[in-house]
């Protein structure tokens, strides 16, 4: 049983919801690339319940980053699990526009393209080192795969709200080459 099937089963028992983000979500929006973990986003009010679920599934606690929790996989060829914690209102806004998807045998929710781009732009603004390269690559390829007009107002506003205009100009320049 895949990690997503396991998470679905455990979440249903406690009437919890999660949204698949990270590389798995990027692939669901048309850009296939490598990934090393399973990232999910949850309401931070449910933090303790998700900790119990992860540990109940055999995941070993690795790190508490405040806005995220990291767990090591119980098996060599299983995804590590990272749990991103967001305020309830943010979770509800993301959930309102989710895209239902099939992933490794499970029915899951991934963010809408706009919301996934918002998450990626947030990561671009606050990330460091190689992470920035990966997120820049994701944003550029999501734009290409979904034929997003980078000059459109909604795209520019994502950078105004979650990133900055320097990042916006970089993306526009990269895609113009």
């Amino acid at each position, binding site marked *: 049983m895949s990690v997503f099937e396991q998470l679905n089963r455990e979440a249903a028992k406690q009437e919890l919801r999660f949204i698949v983000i990270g590389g798995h979500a990027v692939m669901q929006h048309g850009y296939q690339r*490598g990934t*090393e973990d399973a990232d999910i986003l949850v309401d931070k009010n449910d933090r303790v319940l998700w900790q119990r679920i992860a540990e109940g599934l055999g995941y070993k606690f690795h790190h508490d980053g405040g*806005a995220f929790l990291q767990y090591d*996989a119980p098996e060599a060829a299983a995804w590590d699990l990272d749990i991103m914690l967001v305020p309830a209102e943010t979770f509800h806004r993301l959930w309102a526009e989710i895209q239902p998807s099939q*992933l490794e045998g499970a029915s899951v929710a991934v963010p809408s393209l706009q919301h996934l781009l918002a998450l990626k732009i947030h990561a671009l603004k606050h*990330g460091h080192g190689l*992470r920035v390269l990966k997120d820049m690559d994701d944003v550029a390829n999501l734009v290409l795969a979904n034929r997003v007009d980078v000059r459109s107002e909604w795209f520019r506003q994502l950078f105004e709200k979650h990133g900055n205009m320097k990042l916006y100009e970089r993306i526009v320049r990269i895609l113009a080459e």
Partner: protein
Amino acid sequence: MNESSASSPNEPAPACAVPAQFGDHLELPDWSGQRPRQTRVPTDEWLAYCRSNLPLIRSKPGYQERRLKSKVSVEFVL
């Protein structure tokens, strides 16, 4: 004589030594005209392949440090 044979036997070898002659005689083609194309591998097959590589990836030095640095600690608010 290459660089490795010239070094003292007591000195540790570099982590990733490049042979001295490497790159001197390579004639590489011009790939600038290559057109990007989407893969035809179904996503779940691709993910199974990625998972099969995890033990190798985790065995590389610095994996855990890279993993830790790959996360953003600033809360996302929509």
